[in-house]
């Protein structure tokens, strides 16, 4: 936000919230879609994040970049939604269940075994994977968005990748025996 200035109250002055949202909207929608695995969920989550961001826009402070600030809000919304989904449904994801959807985000998760494994990760692990490998963010940027130390991101990422690799290897072995 090149034009950002900050007044004494800390609120960003001269910052065009609407313009920033417009620039960031597609990326935010895709980020939410990849985390939630559905375009409906992505739309609802982005809308909710927009509302929260608008209400909290005065908390955007000098030096705080809009994308990171908005991402944090969006990620919180997505985390809440994923946890709520799990609380409400109480079902194990059926990784082999056929789907009839053409939802582009669901297709990413249903494209192959890797996608199906990603779909079963817990919310924080899934967000970590998407931020690292889709958004291509460095560790410190991910840490800032998830509000955890960089070392935690590194260890969680390492653990998650190991877990994913194990599950893929198990799936490969299973398919060989079938």
């Amino acid at each position: 936000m090149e034009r950002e200035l900050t007044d004494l109250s800390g609120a960003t002055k001269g910052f065009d919230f609407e313009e920033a949202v417009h620039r960031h909207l597609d990326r935010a929608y895709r980020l939410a879609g990849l985390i939630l695995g559905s375009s409906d969920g992505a739309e609802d989550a982005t809308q909710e994040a927009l509302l929260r961001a608008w209400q909290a826009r005065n908390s955007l402070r000098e030096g705080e970049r809009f994308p990171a600030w908005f991402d944090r809000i969006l990620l919180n919304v997505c985390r809440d939604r994923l946890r709520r989904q799990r609380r409400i449904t109480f079902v194990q994801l059926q990784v082999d269940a056929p789907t009839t959807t053409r939802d582009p985000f669901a297709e990413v998760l249903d494209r192959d075994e890797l996608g199906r494994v990603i779909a079963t990760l817990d919310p924080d692990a899934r967000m970590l994977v998407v931020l690292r490998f889709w958004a291509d963010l460095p560790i410190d940027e991910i840490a800032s968005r998830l509000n955890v130390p960089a070392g935690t991101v590194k260890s969680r990422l390492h653990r998650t990748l190991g877990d994913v690799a194990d599950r893929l290897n198990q799936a490969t072995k299973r398919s060989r025996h079938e």
Partner: protein
Amino acid sequence: MSDQDTEERLSRDYRIARLPAAPTRLRALVDVPPNRVAGSNRPRPRLALAGLIVGTVVVGMLAVGSNFLSRDRWTGAVGAAPSSAADATIYTVSELLAARAAGRLGSAPVRLTGYWSDASVPHSCAPPRVDVASESPMIPGELEINCHDGEFGITERDERIAEFIETELPGHEVPQSRMVPAAGPFLTPWVPDGLWPQLQDVGRETPPVPIVVLGHLDDPRAENCRPEAVKLCRDRFVIDAVIELRTN
């Protein structure tokens, strides 16, 4: 598979994923026409979010979450018939295809009538061949409707666009399926995200549904298609609005 293999596969899978842009409904919330953003004397945009929040507080709906702007309530606005179709003719599928073949239809809006049906079934799609060494686009463009072309869309006659027929063949443990296309003319249009809620369950478990849509050909996204599919994409009918859908 090692952690590094997993990392590489994840990066590659995400890189080739073709993800949609934010739907119009979301963009409308911010209400800043992009062509008004540039320039120093642009009018201060009236953020729809602000009004939305005020309205939300007034009606006390915030407590029930973000679904107060349900997709259903927006569908009418998105699907409302635009007022300025250049050509008042309502084409049938065969007329549209003939006019296109004769070079009489460019990218101008046209109306099309027929029967909507959706015969798509769950099946796996072979991943596209990606030639990473080539600079030409090897990933199917969205207008190619890779893998599902011909499974849903508009027929001229009152018939389903396709039927999947299962046949038990000797030597096969499971029935073999084959797709039999409609006997008459048909086309599979590109449907924007905002209109899918109106169409996604229509004509699937029911007979084909009469439909009138407004759309266009020669969509600029055809240039994103693979070289061998650019013509197919230019000829793809892109729906802009559903004018009529007689589900009853």
